[in-house]
């Protein structure tokens, strides 16, 4: 319980620090006024808009006002769209989170069996093949895989129509069919890394004394692996997957551009361009919260499955 509380407090403090730094950083970069007025900007219009948006007040006052509203769920109003940020961000967040989760599930479902298979016949043909593929795939960034997939499955094979995103509301199966490809692009490098990690983790466990004991008690290699080694080998993989889950959300930002998926990534990029800081801040905070919370949950799970941590 004490452990849990300590982690929770760290989480909150981290988020507050991030929010303050992000808020200040955007104040330094400049204001959205130039892009709001475009070529219609005159000194009078600029001054008037500055006043009406409250940019003339001290930064700390504005920060605390923003923070209290944010905690209450009021993310402010977008400067360029004149719409409440909450309503703008939430549907996009749903799309991005969905994409992340499919990519994550793909990673888990594909990499765990592959890693175990490769480890079982160390240095066998399958293992060597996996290692080579791994090495190559790991080096390809997701956006390039995205472009390849678009060319092969979108333009050549016409399995999906690049650019013709269908929302879940319109057509749920079309939506999933479209999202599979961006999810694969994000998952592939992660799968490669997880396979490699899981494989070496198993191999190192298989050399431990307790496995020798298992063999001595009559277990064959399959049983030794399945019943003994995997349980221990998977612990480091879980924390790696947790980090992956938090990083995958960031990968979405790039992949969404390539597949024209209207998630928060695209909203983030264009909002930075127009200096629409209320939107940018909300997204930065969501991304930061995601990373911090996912890691928090990973810590908890880690502790549950590995009792050694509790005693430390």
């Amino acid at each position, binding site marked *: 319980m004490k452990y849990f509380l300590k982690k929770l407090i760290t989480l909150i403090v981290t988020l507050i620090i991030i929010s303050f730094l992000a808020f200040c950083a955007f104040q330094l970069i*400049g204001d959205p006024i*130039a*892009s*709001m*007025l*475009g*070529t*219609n*900007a*005159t000194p009078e219009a*600029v001054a008037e808009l500055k006043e009406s948006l409250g940019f003339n007040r001290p930064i700390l006052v504005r920060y605390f006002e923003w923070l209290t509203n944010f905690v209450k769920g009021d993310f402010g109003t977008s400067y*360029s*769209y*004149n*719409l409440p940020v909450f309503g*703008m961000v939430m549907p*996009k967040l749903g799309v991005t989170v969905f994409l992340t989760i499919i990519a994550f599930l*793909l990673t888990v479902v*594909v990499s765990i069996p592959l890693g175990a298979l490769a480890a079982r016949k160390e240095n066998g043909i399958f293992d060597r093949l996996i290692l*080579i*593929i791994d*090495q*190559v*795939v790991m080096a390809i960034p997701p956006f390039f*895989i995205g472009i*390849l*997939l*678009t060319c*092969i*499955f*979108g*333009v050549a094979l*016409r*399995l*999906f*129509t*690049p*650019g*013709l*995103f269908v*929302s879940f509301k319109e057509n749920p*199966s*079309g939506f*999933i*069919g*479209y999202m*599979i*490809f961006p999810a*694969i692009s994000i998952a*592939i490098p992660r*799968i490669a890394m997880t396979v490699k990690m899981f494989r070496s983790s198993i191999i190192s466990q298989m050399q431990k004394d307790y496995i020798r004991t298992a063999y001595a008690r009559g277990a064959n290699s399959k049983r030794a692996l399945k019943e003994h080694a995997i349980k221990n080998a998977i612990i480091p993989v879980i924390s790696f997957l947790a980090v992956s889950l938090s990083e995958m959300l960031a990968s979405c930002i790039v992949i969404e*551009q*390539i597949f*024209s998926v*209207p998630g928060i990534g*695209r909203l983030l990029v*264009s909002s930075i*361009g*127009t*200096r629409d800081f209320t939107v940018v801040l909300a997204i930065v905070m969501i991304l930061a919260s995601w990373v911090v919370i996912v890691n928090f949950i990973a810590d908890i799970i880690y502790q549950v499955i590995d009792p050694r941590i509790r005693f430390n």
Partner: protein
Amino acid sequence: MKKVLALVLAMTMLVGLAACGGSGSSQPVEPAKKEHGNEIVVGIPQDLGDSLDPYQMSSAGTREILTNVFEGLYKPNSDGDYVPAIASSCEISEDGLTYTFHLNEGVTFHNGKTLTNADLEYSFAKCAETTLDSSLPKFFANADITVNGKGQVIVQLKEAMSDIFAYISLIYIIPADYADQLTAPIGTGPYKFVSRSVQENVILEKFEEYYGEKAKIDKITCKVFEDGTALVTALNAGAIDFATHLSLDQVAGVGSDYQVIEGTTNVVQALYINNAAKPFDDIRVRQALCYAVNVDDVLQLVANGHGTKLGTSIYPSFKKYFDSSLVGYYKYDVEKAKSLLAEAGYPNGFDMTITVPSVYPIHVNTALVIAEQLKAAGINAQVQEVEWNTWLTDVYSNRDFETTVSGFDASTLTANALLERWTSGHKKNMINFANSEYDEYMTKANSTTDEAERTKLFIAASRVLTENAANVYIQDAAEFTVMNGLLDGYQSYPLYRINFASLYYTDL
């Protein structure tokens, strides 16, 4: 060899994995080239991010879509003239000061309400109060607008104004006291607004009760593609029926089931020079720049020879005001440039900076070619790419620059829209051009009521810009419109406007 093998293996794995993923889902999205309904998908390069309120929209991209929803008493047509819209005709008094607009009968708003005098009065007042357009306040200050019981709008001018229809077309008529223009705009146009999803799409639907010639296509979905590559991919995959403002590279790969229409951007692209900054305050230096730039080569290198050369701040779609003798006024001549520089006291050339907004590849590429060409005349030009916001603040508003490659378009179909900004002391006179002869021509042109005389004066003014080498004029760049092969009826406008109402499917 091992590497090649590895790569092949990687590809196989990619394909294999993807196939697993694909079959796991239910059916994939069908390709777009199929039975089409009476609707089109339009690819637009940016969201309607400024505002849906007709008086608050400031970007050209927003205007070109929403002019299908909103109309004024008059509207521009594709020939560059202003024609009746909500008004059916207009009488002009002999002194040119009173304009009486007669209205069409049975004009209804998209919410089903009939247009009333109250709506007209509200629209004029609301527009005067809230417009972001910087040319309209001048009109409102000079005009007294009343609506009489006979359904006529009377505009009484204090002084004669040459381009009143241009202003009238910008005052969109909206229903009185309707508070939701920002989120659910309502106008009188041939299309009504249905919905928008930020960064995703804007959907318009044919307005069945339109008083004029009704639109032919039932539904227009404008899909936002902020990434140029994604737009091209979507085109190649047949996901879009219509897209405009495309570059040569973007249309290079489109399939044969599309028709490609070449047009111009209607933007005056130039190497804009800060006439107040040293050494550019010397006319000889500016002329030397003009002589040292080979515009033909620029066009060749930037767009494979596509584009129309310009000599002044007027582009050819403005047929009336376009003086073709100004094109090529400065023939490419490095020796002449050098001798002008020597005369001005720079026999060894000088260093200069070209600041360009990085979001416009065409301007960046043009700047790079110009910088290379200037070397021959001994001028060492550095190209500095900046973000659009920085450009707006530093270059455009604060005029803190030496030269920049950029473009100016016209918001209305009048010479004023392009020329007025260069009068001395004008708020938007980014280049600090100050020439009394020019100012005089412009003042005279704006106070004459005689059309032919006015045209002549505007042309004379545009010649002053060329003779004084105000800027190094480059081109009105080529741009391409791509359209589903089954569509017809496209009209190209000399200003930012896509008229969806004229499009139709030839097989329906």
